[in-house]
């Protein structure tokens, strides 16, 4: 197994894992709330586009759960050193792949909304990757491309409506895009501060989605 070729995870002692777990709990609650409203919207309106956004956020939530389980195992087992390294890599790769699938759903939703064909031609990239390090980098790059595409569409939606509620997904996806870019840079430069900033930005993106879910629940 070539996990040792993966970029090094953060090495700031045991408090980091519980902190990441806490962020994941908040992120998961934001995603689940949004999924709940999207599912209700789909069930009531029968508008198929809601299914794409629901599926995207549901897969993101599933990725968060997978990451939480792995982090929890790492914390509870008191694993140290190489085992933590291994487990955090597993968590990272699982979450990364789920994000790719999720962003594909969301990008497809925006694509169908504007009446163009889905651009899934990048998928074969993954089929030739065998080891986890390659999968991690491939999904990171793919996520960045997908997020850039999603951000452009979300900003277009906001520009055409100029409504506050439409600004929230645009902000959330922009923060996720920035987070993804910072994540890649942090792994490239082995910069821990950059890694933390990336996690915080991703968390802020999900909090923005939580604000959206709260606004919807208040409507």
């Amino acid at each position, binding site marked *: 197994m070539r996990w040792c070729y993966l970029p090094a995870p953060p090495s700031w002692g045991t408090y980091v894992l519980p902190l990441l777990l806490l962020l994941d709990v908040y992120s998961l609650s934001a995603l689940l709330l949004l999924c709940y*409203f*999207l599912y*209700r*919207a789909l069930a*009531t*309106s029968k*508008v198929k*586009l*809601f299914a794409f*956004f629901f599926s995207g956020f549901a897969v993101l939530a599933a990725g968060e759960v997978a990451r939480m389980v792995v982090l929890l195992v790492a914390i509870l087992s008191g694993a140290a050193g190489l085992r933590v390294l291994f487990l955090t890599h597993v968590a990272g790769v699982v979450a990364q792949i789920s994000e790719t699938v999720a962003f594909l759903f969301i990008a497809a*939703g*925006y694509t169908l*909304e504007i009446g163009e064909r889905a651009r899934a031609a990048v998928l074969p990239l993954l089929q030739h990757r065998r080891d986890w390090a390659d999968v991690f980098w491939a999904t990171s790059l793919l996520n960045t491309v997908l997020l850039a595409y999603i951000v452009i*569409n*979300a900003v*277009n*939606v906001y520009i*055409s*409506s100029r*409504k506050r*509620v*439409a600004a*929230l*997904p645009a902000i959330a996806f922009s923060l996720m895009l920035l987070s993804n870019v910072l994540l890649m840079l942090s792994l490239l430069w082995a910069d821990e501060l950059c890694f933390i900033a990336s996690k915080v930005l991703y968390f802020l993106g999900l909090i923005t989605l939580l604000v*959206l879910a709260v*606004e*919807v*629940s208040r*409507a």
Partner: protein
Amino acid sequence: MSARRSKLRIIADILRVVESEGEANISKILLEANLSYARLTKYLGELESKGFLERIADEREVKFRVTRKGQEFLREFRRIEQLAEAFGIEL
């Protein structure tokens, strides 16, 4: 905004007109909901049978009032509308 309204939006428009008036007669709904008489009566019948609207009839005219179920539907529609606006989905 699309040229054609979905059935969901038409139902919400009718319920909104009636809710804003408290009680509304057919002429008022016809004017505000922008529908033909034939389509409106068809929708009113459907909304009544689903329990979203209740008919209040006296000697002079027929009026409609939004039921609790209708109010709940309107609340749900507002949520759907917010999500649709957020993600640029046409309803």
